[in-house]
């Protein structure tokens, strides 16, 4: 069997945000759930605020880029028998990632001020 991987117009450029460990959603609805805020400092360091955690990361070029393949099933009518033909479309290329490797710093609220 031959499953084609096709180019369909220009590729988008996507990126990866790499986090240590796993990300879990508490709600049962897991679409359009807010995850966090991504900032960059003026010097270019990415900062991710997730819940009560602040993460400082680094932008990196991937040693080997990724292609993002999206599976598509086409119904093909061959002599009145409907056959399912799978193919993949290359939607995007990923050349860079932002990696958050350091331990998250908690945001501490209500710290008494001295002065």
């Amino acid at each position, binding site marked *: 069997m031959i499953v084609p991987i096709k*180019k369909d117009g220009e590729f988008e450029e996507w990126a990866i945000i790499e986090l240590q460990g796993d990300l879990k959603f508490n709600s049962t609805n897991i679409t359009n759930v807010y995850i966090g805020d991504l900032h960059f400092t003026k010097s270019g360091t990415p900062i991710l605020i997730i819940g009560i955690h602040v993460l400082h990361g680094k932008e990196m070029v991937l040693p080997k880029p990724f292609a993002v393949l999206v599976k598509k099933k086409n119904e093909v009518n061959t002599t009145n028998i409907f056959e399912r033909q799978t193919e993949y479309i290359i939607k995007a290329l990923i050349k860079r990632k932002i990696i958050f490797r350091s331990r998250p710093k908690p945001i501490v609220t209500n710290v008494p001020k001295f002065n």
Partner: protein
Amino acid sequence: MESVESSYSRTMEEVQESLKLAVIKESDLQKVTQILYSTEEPNVEEHIKLLELDDHLLETVNKGDSLTFQGTEEDLVVLCTKCRTYDIKEAGTSNSYLLVPKLNLSEQSNVDTNRTIKARNISGIFHTYYEVKECRPKLEKLLNVLEPTSFKGIEYESSISHELLYDWHRLKNEIQASEAELIQALNDYLITNIDGYFRLISFEFEARSLTLMLDLFEENSWEIDEVDKEITYEFLKELIYKPVFNILFTKYTEISEKSKKDGTPLYRYNEEKCCKTLAKVLFVASPVTEYKQFMKSWNIGTPEKIEPKEEYLYGIALIRWNNLMEKEIVSFPETDLPIDVDERFNKLFKAKKKWTVQEITPYIINLTTNKMNVNALLTKYARSSIINGIKYYSSKYDK
């Protein structure tokens, strides 16, 4: 582990409030803040695969050249470009990869306006991706599927069952190899196109044809480099289809420097290839033969102007000393050896302890890839030693 609370749409005020709580000065930050949300639709990641690309694959996808996953249900899937084949392995990572379409990186966020916020829905969280490794095309199957319909001679053609025949489409579908590698293999294995179907030429038929060709060569007392192709075909045409003749004649000859009076070229028999095939004929009758006796029979079977030499046996037979300290010749075809590199080297060193590079090369040349040549293979899988000035390779694990 990070934990995320319920769903809402984030406002500028909330972003600024978070920054304040985290004691991060807004003035230190670039003006664009990207808000990450989970996927827009459920199960988006089920339809997405991440495929790692090397330089060749990157070039292939950028050009929009052919790229395919190939394999039948019982095969492990491979990835093929027009000219290369790759093994694919699913690799896992303990980190989470959040796939973010159109994410702005630092230089794209460095704009001089008021703070803006951009919503970014991720396209899933991934813990696996496909790793690729260039490999040799999986050609073992090629011989297996074509064997039942191999060409044994015109008189046997009516007994070939039609549904076992392979046309290009069927072959391409079942053999895990790129198009260029498959075409190369068809040449290497003497596979010829007869009426649209790809056919192996059986060894018996090949040997019979070669013997007839060489008989004619002797009868006409041609010089080795004065072989006439037309006369040879005329002599054989009752027995052999033209495409089969052409592929055999091309295998056993090269164009000679001499030509006929009308300018058409004459040909020269390739002594090594002719002698190899004639030796294989002897092995069919007797796989193990005492050295002198073998050399004698081999000489008798070969035209006078072609001289069999010991080194022509490399890749098809071993010359070794048996328990009675007699020199003998043992049939040992490369095609019978395992495909796996470790297993193949084991088998080679079991059959014979020490090999010269010249002796072992025909047995491992088919394991080489763009990244690993014969020398690299020997360095990795064997140990070298020098005896009387000659370099030998032996097993890494023997004393």
